[in-house]
Structures are given as C-alpha cells and as structure tokens.
C-alpha cells in the first residue's frame, strides 16, 4: 500500500507513455497517431497497445513502410491544423525521413517568413544494448539537436515519459521525443507531478558537491549507479539529467559545475561531434574559472555496434567507465 493509503501505483515507462498517448487522443480530436504497426500490431515496442480498439483506424493509423511519405504527411497535416503524433519505429529508420524533418519541418516557419509553424510531435526509439548490431543500435539524438527550429527531448524517468507529451503537443513548433529502448521495462511508482512538467530545464536527480555527472536518456541509470560506488569512496557526485537536448539548459549545467568544479558528460553516441562534445565546449566557455580538472567524456567506442554481447558491452559507456572518469577528474 502507498504511504498515503492509495494502492501502490506501480507502472512501467512503456505504460506511462501509453497513458500519455491515450490522454492526448482523448483531450483533443485534432490529435492522431500515425506510424508503422502502431495500430493492429500495438506498436513495435508495445507502446500503443489497445489504442486502435479505443480510438479507431482514422486516429490510430498504420502506415506503409514509407518513412519519408508518412513523416512528410505528418508535417502537411500539422500545417493544415491537425496535431499529429508520428512514431518512427527507431532512430535508425529516421534517416529515411531526415530530409522531411530538416528541410520541411524545421525550416518552413523561417522560409515562409513566420507564416507556417509546424505543430508536430515525432517519437522514436533510440540506443543500443540489446545485441541488435550496427544498423539497429544508433544513438543519433545529437544530429537532431544540431537543427535550429525543432525541440529535442529525452525522457529518462517514468514521470517525464508520462508528462512530457502534453506540453510537446502544445508547442507550435516540431518536437522530437527520443525513448531509449532499455527504458521501456523500467518500472516504479508514478506519483502525480507536484508542479507541471516543463520542457526547458534539466533536473538534478542526485545533489552532490565534488563532481557533476551530466547525462540524459538511457545513460541515466548508469550514472546513478556510479554515484553509489563513488559515495562509498567519499566522493559526493551530483547527477544532472539534461531532459532537453535542444535547447540545452546552460544555466543548470553552469550552476552545477560552479558547485562541484569537475564534470563528466555521459553520452551513448560516438565521441566525435557528439552532444557530449557540445556540452563539454559550453562548460569550457561558461565555467572556465570554475574548472579544477579537464571535462571528462564517456561515450561509445567509435565502432559500428558489434553483435557479440561482450563486444557490445565493451563498446558502450558503462558504470565502471563513469567511475574511472570521475577518479581522473577528482584526482
């Protein structure tokens, strides 16, 4: 039983996102869900299970395997006043629709001199860790966070999975939501949010004074695990969950580094040109006089993701890597 007498509201990240979709479809008839196998199959990762039965084929639309066409159609429908949610099965297939996202969704408002906002939400699964090998294991959030004109979110907790969708739908501009594949089965208690969940700020998941562990999405659990190991050695580590990858919450990052004077950035993408590189550059620019050690980065090895389990684990950023980086920084 919950402390306040209600039944323990245990739920999973997947169920939280499904509930968000159901709430959105109920609240506004301009909202509809479109994507491969979102209807009869119930979603490749089961997120939209049961929605077809509840809302019908007009508002939960299975699409042919034509990413460019149905993402472009989502953009067109948004231009015409609808509030579509387009699901791209994984970020790996989003490359087929990158032209529509970059050259249409992100750019129409500007090219039209402000006449054509595109109120569209695109959700896609991301990340590696399930031995899906090179073509199914990419982490390309950084590519999208490079594009002016769109907002990029990375819900890592149950609360964010449940409550980010509504403000995203209310945003007049395109919003991309990245859901890390390893998070769907995470379960826990989902309490109603105290104040409304915003999209502009990072969150301090664990306060600390000696070092800042800055991360997002699927890497958050590994960072929290690292905190326990470091605490045992007397190092008080702070964990910053970025939540929004564009725009980055510069103030939160700078405030944390001003407290701890050391930073490790954890990002599952490849190091070169990664989001971690951008965060590290901003720390060097904004908090140079607060740095008592070079900024450390823990990213994937620069290799197409191998299939063999031990190789994949070696390629991906792990808790041990985070602890080692923290040691290098704390000295």
């Amino acid at each position, binding site marked *: 039983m919950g402390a306040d007498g209600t039944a323990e509201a245990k739920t999973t990240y997947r169920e939280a996102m499904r509930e968000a979709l159901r709430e959105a479809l109920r609240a506004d008839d301009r909202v509809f869900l479109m994507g491969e196998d979102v209807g009869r199959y119930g979603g490749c990762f089961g997120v939209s299970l049961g929605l077809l039965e509840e809302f019908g084929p007009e508002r939960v639309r299975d699409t042919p395997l034509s990413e460019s066409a149905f993402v472009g*159609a989502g953009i067109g429908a948004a231009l*015409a006043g609808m509030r579509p949610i387009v699901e791209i099965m994984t970020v790996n297939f989003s490359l087929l629709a990158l032209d529509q996202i970059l050259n249409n969704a992100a750019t129409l408002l500007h090219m039209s001199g402000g006449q054509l906002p595109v109120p569209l939400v695109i959700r896609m699964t991301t990340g590696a860790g399930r031995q899906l090998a090179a073509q199914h294991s990419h982490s390309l959030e950084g590519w999208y966070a490079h594009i002016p004109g769109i907002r990029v979110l990375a819900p890592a907790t149950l609360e964010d999975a449940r409550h980010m969708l509504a403000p995203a739908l209310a945003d007049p501009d395109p919003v991309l939501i990245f859901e890390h594949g390893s998070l769907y089965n995470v379960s826990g208690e989902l309490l109603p949010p105290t104040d409304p969940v915003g999209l502009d700020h990072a969150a301090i998941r664990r306060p600390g004074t000696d070092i800042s562990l800055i991360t997002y999405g699927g890497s958050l659990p590994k960072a929290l695990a690292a905190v326990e190991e470091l605490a045992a050695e007397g190092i008080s580590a702070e964990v910053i969950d970025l939540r929004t990858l564009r725009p980055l919450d510069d103030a939160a990052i700078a405030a944390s580094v001003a407290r701890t004077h050391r930073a490790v950035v954890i990002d599952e993408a490849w190091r070169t040109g990664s989001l971690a590189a951008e965060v590290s550059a901003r720390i060097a620019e904004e908090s140079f006089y607060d740095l008592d050690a070079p900024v450390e980065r823990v990213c994937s090895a620069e290799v197409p993701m191998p299939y063999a389990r031990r190789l994949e684990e070696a390629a991906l950023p792990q808790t041990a890597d985070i602890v080692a980086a923290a040691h290098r920084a704390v000295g």
Partner: protein
Amino acid sequence: MSVARHTRTRKDPAHPKPVMKTAADKKNARTEHRRELLEAMLRIRRFEERCVELYSATKIRGFVHLYIGEEAVAVGVNGALTPEDAVVSTYREHGHALARGIAAEAVMAEMHGRTTGCSGGRGGSMHLFDASRRFYGGSAIVAGGLPLAAGLALADRMRGLPHVTCCFFGDGAFAEGEFHETANLAALWGLPLLLVCENNLYAMGTALAREHAQTDLAMRAASYGMPAWAVDGMDVEAVEQAARRAVEGIRAGTGPHFLEARTYRFRAHSMYDPDRYRAKVEIEQWKERDPISLLTDRMHENGELGDKELARIEQRITAEIDHAVEAAEQAPEEPVENLLHHVTSASAEAVS
C-alpha cells in the same frame, strides 16, 4: 500583401461562372473567361522576361528557374481550384504563385529579398509562401513537397472538408522514392489529392528517355490504383477542362487523381545553363505551339480579341510589373537584428 496600385482588380479566375441562360450569354462568358486565362498567362510570361533582365543586371540573385512555355499548366489547373483548396509547388514556381493570385509585387519583392516579399525576404524565388491563399510554397528538394501535400489532403479529409490539395511536380520528381511512397499512401487512404506532373521532357539536363525506363508517366501512375491521364500542357483550355474533371472526381470521394501535363520550357533549366542537352530545332518546334499564341489565335478566329484590346492588356501588365519592380527596389530590407526571428515560433529571443 499590398496589391499593385493601379491594376484593375482581377476577377479571381478560379470562381466557376454562374449558370447562363441564353447561348449569347454563354458565348460572352466564354470570351470573358478566355480573356482572363490570356491575361493570367501573359502576366507570368512578362514577369519572367523581366526577371531575366534583372538577373543579368545582378538585381536579383541566387537560383531562378523560369516557367516560360509552361504557363498553360499553372493557369489551366488553377482554373479548377477554389480559394479553400491547397497548393504545393516546386522551385519553378513563379507561374504557380502568380496564377494562385499572389501579387506580382509580393513575388518581385521576395526575389529582391525585401520584407514586403510574400515570404518576408526569407525564402526567395524557390520558397514563395502565402498561408492566406493556402499556397504552401516551393520546395527546393525535388519531390520534397509530395509527402507534405498528402498530409494536407489527409487533414482536410479527416475533418470532413471538401477541399482538394493540388501538388505540382516534374518528370524528374517522378523518379524520386518520395513520389512512389506518396502515390501509394494517397491511393491506399483515398486522399483528396490532385497530382499534376509537369512533364517538360527534361530533368534539368537529362531527357525523359534517359531518366525513365517507361516514359508513359500517366500509365505508370495508374498502376497505383488512381485515375491518371495525360493532357496537352500547351493548351490552357484543355488543361483546365482535364483539371476540372479530375477535381470533380476527387470531391466526389474517388481518391487521388494524376494529371500528366505534357509541356515544354522555352528557356534553360535555371538562369543560364548551357542548354547543350537539347537541340535548338526542338525548341523552335515547341515554340510554334506557344501556349499564349495558341489561345490568341483561337480568340482571333472567333473574333473575340482585337489588336487594340491585346495591346491594352499588354500595357496594363507592363505597368503592373514596372510598379512591382519599382516597389521592390524601394521596399525595406529586414534589419540584421532580426536574424534569429522565425527560427521557432517564440524566437523573439535567440534559442540556442
């Protein structure tokens, strides 16, 4: 957009004529309509001829793709659409924009990069937009507009609105993946979409037979399960009649239709390409079926057009374009401080 000062307020050619009682009335109505089609085509022709001069004198820059020779398609198709219908175009779009009713001044100002341009100076020749006329602009990515048009049609259909979305694209776009994905999706979902393929026989420098294994585009479009037929893209009345038939079919709910307008561009792909890929004699042959002279000859035969009246139309259009150029050259440029405007809807402040 401010309408050119001293042009006669044009009756919007798109409105179908009320039912006429006597044969004479019917004849006058046809003459009046032909005069409107002629003026619309002449406006496009003269506008683009002026662009050639302005481009050579470095007054307008960037890429400019001319529509001279294909005017009948834009004017004919637009005759079948209502102001509530939506239009998606390509980078060769001056004709589509002017036929849709966007003022010559707004288009000229846009090509001069001024704030009074129809895209505020941000889009240029390849990205003309007018939300009030549901003109969802040019796209510089070949076939980039096709999925967009499917989405517009989907939205109208989901909201039970009887509107049609018309998407212009070329024979080059017909070879892009996005065309095939969109055609299938539109047919699958029965979307109210009019696909108008302006087949001008060349994808930039590649002749039709060197880009398509099967060059009968209409036949190939039909294979997606939608009515599809070809029409003489040089005859504005034939195009209008075909477009009307397609649009009536779409509004009756029979799903997307495909029109292959066989037409030809008299000038290079863009401002000054070597044009070595086609023979001079071929251009001359097609010029003999110039869409404007086809219509004027037909009107002369029926005594519907005197030289004096033609001169008056020419004079009125020249004045309209002179004014458009003059206004564009005097219009203000956007201050640099506004650089980051319109990046996001709330981008009064710069969002990193």
